[in-house]
């Protein structure tokens, strides 16, 4: 038994050495094969990163906050088209003993005026209640604490260049009123406004007239032992039909689903991802199998020398796997550089996550095994005599 295992191991070592030697015999050809295999992998990684970046991006706003449940208007579609509801719904929710605290968010679309150049841009103004426990993002928490005067605002660091200087103490125009920048937060609303601003809800009315008792989104924090899903159901049952109560996860899932399946950019990114997946896999299969087929002579020689077909196939499979792994590593580096540039210019969080890298690696390995199998028939048929 032991001797058989030893024999297998030594044979596999032989496989490995032959595969490596065969691959590295001609440097240029190896480089071309690696590059050719890396391109579809880069494409695959980038399209997956774009889509996952967009999925992270659409819930970025909610990720600034710490909450268990959300109350939204029945007209709610997504953050930018949230609909309005009566603030009294939050008071009603607070009556439940399991509810620890409530928090109101108001949203308005305003103009931002860069007082230095006179340029106007669109901005989304968020009004927040003063309840630091709801603020998860440390930068935002620090910013809210620094809003001391009624004309102080926080501004999105990722706002468009037309906004002008975003340094503390800069005076700008918000909805025709002079405001002072007191801090910054990071959001990036990519298509919906040039930038965004955050003010205290007590100051919100200065920028947006309208019913001061109506709010756009209500957040709820529960006592520690309460079950969010159960409380959400109880609240939903006790409220009129003009609002909906969702758990945090359900809200985020709905936000993502809306963007990916209804908004054109989301649909397009998804289509691009599927195309990259299909095309990438097919090209990968083709590139790897071509490279193996091109070494048919070597395989035929091995056969002529008397090696068993399993051994020859083992060499082919190993070559495919080594090629694929090498190309994957190259692609990983290239994709990280390109995505780093994309992230820096667009603020879309399109980095390579471990999950994404792992998914790609699995696809790459599966494709290389498949291509090795598709070549095995050619190897079996390879007649040494015919090749010379």
């Amino acid at each position, binding site marked *: 038994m032991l001797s058989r295992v030893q024999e297998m191991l030594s044979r596999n070592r032989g496989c490995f050495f032959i595969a490596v030697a065969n691959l590295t015999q001609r440097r240029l050809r190896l480089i071309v094969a690696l590059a*050719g295999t890396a*391109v*579809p992998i*880069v*494409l695959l990684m*980038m*399209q997956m990163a*774009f889509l996952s970046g967009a999925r992270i991006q659409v819930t970025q706003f909610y990720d600034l906050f710490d909450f268990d449940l959300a109350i939204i208007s*029945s*007209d709610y*579609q997504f953050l930018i*088209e949230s*609909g309005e509801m009566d603030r009294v719904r939050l008071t009603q929710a607070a009556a439940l003993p399991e509810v620890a605290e409530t928090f109101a968010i108001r949203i308005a679309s305003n103009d931002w005026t860069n007082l230095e150049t*006179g*340029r*106007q*841009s*669109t901005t989304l103004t968020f009004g927040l209640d003063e309840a630091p426990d709801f603020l998860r993002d440390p930068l935002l928490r620090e910013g809210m604490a620094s809003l001391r005067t009624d004309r102080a605002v926080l501004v999105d660091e990722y706002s468009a260049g*037309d906004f002008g200087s975003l340094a503390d103490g800069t005076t700008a125009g918000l909805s025709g009123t002079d405001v002072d920048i007191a801090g910054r937060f990071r959001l990036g609303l*990519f*298509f*919906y406004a040039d930038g965004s601003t955050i003010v205290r809800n007590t100051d919100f009315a200065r920028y947006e007239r309208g019913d001061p008792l109506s709010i756009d989104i209500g957040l709820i924090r529960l006592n520690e032992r309460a079950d969010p899903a159960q409380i959400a159901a109880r609240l939903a049952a006790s409220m009129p*039909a003009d609002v909906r109560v969702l758990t945090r996860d359900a809200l985020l899932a709905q936000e993502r689903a809306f963007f990916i399946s*209804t*908004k*054109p*950019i989301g*649909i*397009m*990114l998804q*289509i*691009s991802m599927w*195309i*990259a997946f299909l*095309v990438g896999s*097919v*090209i990968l299969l*083709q*590139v790897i199998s*071509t490279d193996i087929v*091109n070494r048919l002579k070597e395989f035929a020689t091995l056969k002529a020398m008397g090696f068993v077909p399993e051994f020859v196939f083992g060499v082919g499979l190993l070559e495919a796997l080594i090629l694929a792994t090498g190309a994957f590593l190259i692609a990983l580096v290239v994709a990280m550089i*390109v995505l780093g540039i*994309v992230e820096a*210019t*667009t*603020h*879309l969080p399109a980095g390579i996550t471990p999950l994404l890298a792992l998914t790609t690696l699995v696809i790459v390995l599966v494709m290389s095994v498949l291509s090795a199998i598709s070549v095995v028939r050619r190897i079996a048929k390879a007649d040494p005599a015919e090749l010379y």
Partner: protein
Amino acid sequence: MRWRDWLPLQHPPGIGVRLIAFNRLRLLAAFAGIGVAVAVMFVEFGLLMGILNSQSLMATLVRGELVVVNEARTNLHKWDSMNRIRLNQIAADPDVERVIPVYLGNMGLRDPATNSVRRILVVAFPSGELPFAIGDPDAVARALRSPNTVLFDRLSRPIYPDIVADGEAELNGLSYRVAGYVDLGPDIIHDGAIVMSDASWFQRNPNARPIMGVIRLAEGADTDAVRERLIAALPDDVSFFTPEELRQREFDFTLRSAPIGILFGIGMLAGLVIGSITCYQILFNEIVDRLKQYATLKAMGFSEVFLRGIIIEQALLLACGGFLGGLIFAWGSYIYIADRTALAVTLSVPSVLLIFFMAAGMSVVAALIALRRVVTADPAELY
């Protein structure tokens, strides 16, 4: 003159065709490989153009010689309105026949079935003058003449309730009569639109200011001369564009606004690279398989130009076959994408030509690289 005469080919016709047709299975695989690359380029290009064209849609639909907007309105999705008096100042020019004010706004359209409200774009203008090519001018004028009547954009995304002609629609809590349809089309931001007369709009917004003015000139007037006069006569808080200039400005603005150009441009580039690699591989294999024959030809004294001609011809034939396959696939996927996104994703002659030349270009480049193998082939070595 036949197409071959345009190319520096020395070999008789038919060799390239016979060579690539020799192995049917490989030919199909080659067509498929290049077709996939062409399809990727088409789809990514279509997505990008769909976004760019949809964003500048309003400019392309303008029925007039000039458009006036607030100087601060650097793109059509910024809603800086104008002082109304500017339109009257423009109308004072003798060569200006009419200035049509356009108002934009948002309203909530209630779905009676679910009671939910969806935001919808409102486009308002004087009932007698249609500033955009979105329907029959007489029919629109007739429909909008009666107060509180709207026309629904037939191309809106299907998130709105069923709007039937001669039915009712509840907008911001008020009931309007739906007189019929127009064809406008949504963009990235707006999901749908309704059209109403400026009188109906003023009822809701007495202080509404125009966001755009469509200028129609008298017959025979020189557009550039009128524009010069208007720029000189009016303060610089307004800008003048021809519809084409406005479209181009919007197109460029959207392309430059960071994520869109990058996200879909990279996809297209990837298609091009993949196509080149596939094509190179196919041609390289083709050459390696027939190296003996090529070397024999060389030994017989045929020139390098002769051999190059054969291989470039094969590359172009492969590109044509793959292009046709990719085109058919792209045509189907455009229909699907247009249906899903409601954006203007269409195959246009320039885009088809562009992709064709890219496909042909990448094939020839791949052929030239693969050719190096033939050039270095030494006949003596092969036997």
